[in-house]
């Protein structure tokens, strides 16, 4: 029985291989373009957009729900965060990334504005008593607005752009065969054909059988060369994009947070952030410098093709087989210096009498340390989802009545389309802002964010 099955299996395998080969053979009734596409399907060349990589929520870098992969690629994004936690109940984030080619060609400036649904600060709501509802009704959506501007350099060491790595890409592709020589041979054959043959012409329009056969054979050879070249180029660009997506990002910025005094004091802050990933191009080049540095593998203007091929195979192996070429695990460190304005809040117009008014707030300075870890979830059933865990610790330096604050968040964000992401966050804070008390707060935030990539068809 098994003896009969083995030859049958071998026969079926051979038939399958033969069928594939026949499908790629061109006939005189094919047009030249149809013949070409038998080898080079246009659809097969499409790949995943990295500009639309799930970068989590665009929410404020000062908020607990954060991402370890800050997006400097989209032109514009917006987010709505509806929270059940007492602080920052509902907020809207608008986010622009603007080219800033004044230091290096590909640098970016990020502008963010956060509109938060204003809530009465706890230090005024208690003395307001029954007047709290009146005070709250006077607040508008412009009474708690923060504006952030940050700068992110893009060069060979930092940032997610291919532009600083063009020489490296070109080096990798020197190991790739170029089909131009085969194309030239087609042209040479057609130059001797009396008929005017275009890509839409059938081979059968070449009346001389010998010339027709030669052209078919040469188009097949060129198409096969292109197929090989294209497959290799796709692998190279995909791997390179993957590791560029994992390049570290460094950015620094300043925030001005305006608040109605009933909501809290105005604040000014400066913040520096460093993001890194273990599978970055920097990391790859450090350990493969001898075969991957174009400058070290060039002799008399000629590239060492063997080393370029070795570098390519190592890069493809290093990048892994993840599809799409999305960002890998990522860690972000940040430190922020914040200064809150000292003020005296007069509540007499809400019928509050001394000593409950004015409410005096001393100027405070604080240092906020943040650590965020994020990773994509490699589950086919929840495609293009990521999770980010963030921990913020605020050390308030010059107000002994204020307790240092600890905020942690776990954010799951699910990309539902190239432009839309749904984040869900669970946050924990050991107490609300601007209060010495230690009433712990646990909350859940739901949101939606929309981004316009720098290309494509995203509409807002």
């Amino acid at each position: 029985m098994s003896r009969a099955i083995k030859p049958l299996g071998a026969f079926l395998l051979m038939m399958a291989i033969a069928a594939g080969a026949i499908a790629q053979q061109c006939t005189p009734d094919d047009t030249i373009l149809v013949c070409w596409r038998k080898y080079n399907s246009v659809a097969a060349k499409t790949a995943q957009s990295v500009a639309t990589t799930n970068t989590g929520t665009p929410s404020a870098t000062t908020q607990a729900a954060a991402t370890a992969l800050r997006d400097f690629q989209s032109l514009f994004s917006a987010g709505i965060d509806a929270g059940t936690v007492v602080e920052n109940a509902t907020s809207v984030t608008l986010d622009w990334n603007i080219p800033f080619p004044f230091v290096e060609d590909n640098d970016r400036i990020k502008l963010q504005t956060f509109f938060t649904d204003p809530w009465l600060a706890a230090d005024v709501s208690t003395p307001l008593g029954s007047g709290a509802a009146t005070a709250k009704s006077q607040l508008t959506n412009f009474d708690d607005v923060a504006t952030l501007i940050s700068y992110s350099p893009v060069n060979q060491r930092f940032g997610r752009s291919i532009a600083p790595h063009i020489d490296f890409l070109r080096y990798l592709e020197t190991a790739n065969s170029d089909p131009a020589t085969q194309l030239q041979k087609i042209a040479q054959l057609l130059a001797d054909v009396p008929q005017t043959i275009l890509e839409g012409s059938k081979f059968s329009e070449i009346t001389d059988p010998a010339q027709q056969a030669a052209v078919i054979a040469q188009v097949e050879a060129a198409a096969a060369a292109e197929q090989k070249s294209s497959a290799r180029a796709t692998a190279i660009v995909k791997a390179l994009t993957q590791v560029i997506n994992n390049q570290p990002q460094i950015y620094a910025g300043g925030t001005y947070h305006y608040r109605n005094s009933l909501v809290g004091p105005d604040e000014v802050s400066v913040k520096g952030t460093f993001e890194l990933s273990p599978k970055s191009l920097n990391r790859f080049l450090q350990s493969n410098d001898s075969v991957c540095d174009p400058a070290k593998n060039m002799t008399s203007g000629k590239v060492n093709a063997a080393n370029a091929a070795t570098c390519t195979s190592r890069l493809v192996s290093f990048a892994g087989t993840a599809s799409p070429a999305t960002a890998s695990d990522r860690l972000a460190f940040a430190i922020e210096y914040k200064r809150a304005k000292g003020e005296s809040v007069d509540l007499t117009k809400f019928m509050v009498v001394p000593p409950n008014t004015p409410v005096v707030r001393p100027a405070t300075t604080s240092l906020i340390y943040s650590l965020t870890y994020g990773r994509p979830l490699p589950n086919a059933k929840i495609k293009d989802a990521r999770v980010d865990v963030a921990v913020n610790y605020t050390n308030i330096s010059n107000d002994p009545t204020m307790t240092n604050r600890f905020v942690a968040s776990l954010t799951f964000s699910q990309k539902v389309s190239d432009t839309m992401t749904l984040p869900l966050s669970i946050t924990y804070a050991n107490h609300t802002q601007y209060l010495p008390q230690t009433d712990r707060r646990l909350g859940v935030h739901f949101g939606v964010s929309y981004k316009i990539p720098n290309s494509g068809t995203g509409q807002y």
Partner: protein
Amino acid sequence: MADCPEFVIWNPLKPGWKFFAQASAATNTGTASNDFDASVHVVQPGGSASDWTKADLDPGPESIDSLEAGGYGASARLVSGPSGPTVTLRAWIVDAAGAKPFDCTWTNSDAGTEFHVSIVLVVKA
């Protein structure tokens, strides 16, 4: 203007005509982007080859100022970087009268991908 097929044959061309190519990239708002690569590799009738790099093509154009009788093969690549700008390659022929009997554009806006274009130029004396 719709993109030409990824494989084109320009036939017949006459000796002395000119072949041009240039490349650029732009974001969806139309601002120029540098997050791309483009190149054209041209093999001439005698077998000698020219490489036109991004620096040659952008802003370009790069050209062969006088085509010779015979066949030319040109292989172009358009790489859209991680931010996914739309990379555009334009190639065209200028005849003796200054007209453009062949004029094509190709675009690639898929971030992190390389798109290939193959051009066969048939120059008949």
